[in-house]
């Protein structure tokens, strides 16, 4: 199962809810304003611990976040990689 979070973890509760529902084997993809959750130095990064997390590269770049700022173990994908993740998982849950 693929989980999408598109909002800042500092504004909404979506990342919190998503990570509380995720099972081992599930993957989280941060997109749009959700990518702020991937920044290592941010308070919200602790929510990602123990989860498989990817982040959408074009959204990272738009927000001026370089890869060295990301929490450890986070995979960066482009839109093609996003499509692959949707294909590789049996279903998608958008935490809107």
């Amino acid at each position, binding site marked *: 199962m693929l989980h*999408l979070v*598109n*909002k800042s973890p500092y504004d909404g509760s979506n990342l919190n809810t998503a990570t509380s529902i995720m099972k081992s084997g599930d993957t989280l993809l941060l*997109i*749009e*304003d959700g990518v702020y959750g991937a920044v290592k130095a941010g308070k919200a990064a602790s929510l990602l611990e123990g989860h498989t997390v990817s982040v959408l590269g*074009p959204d990272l770049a738009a927000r001026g976040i370089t890869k060295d700022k990301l929490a450890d173990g986070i995979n960066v994908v*482009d*839109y*093609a990689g*996003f*499509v*692959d993740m*949707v*294909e590789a998982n049996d*279903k*998608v849950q*958008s935490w*809107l």
Partner: protein
Amino acid sequence: MKFTIQVNEGPYQHQSADTAYHFAKAALDKGHEIFRIFFYHDGVNNGTRLTTPPQDDRNIVNRWSELAREHDIDMVLCVAAAQRRGIVDDGEAERNGKDATNIAPGFRISGLGQLIEGGIESDRTIVFGD
């Protein structure tokens, strides 16, 4: 693989319509099929031909219309949502006594059943919204 994409927000206000477009394009580039793109809630506002974005900005509506034309994609605006937001085709104009239409090329107005059908017939359903 066959995808159905749901778009819940209008153009420009939220990034959802952009992300949905880039996702759809990437899926097509990889040889996947888009069974349907269903526009719901304010998402129906993606289907008005009356927008004139600034010259140095993307034209979200035209981008959808071109994608539909090039790849023969079924792009459906929910009729109930479209009526609430004022997106009108010829049939709706006649039924509701409207003196103008604003639907953009490549879009059609239909019922919510089209979304459910998309969920049934597709291998994956992906929702983009706020």
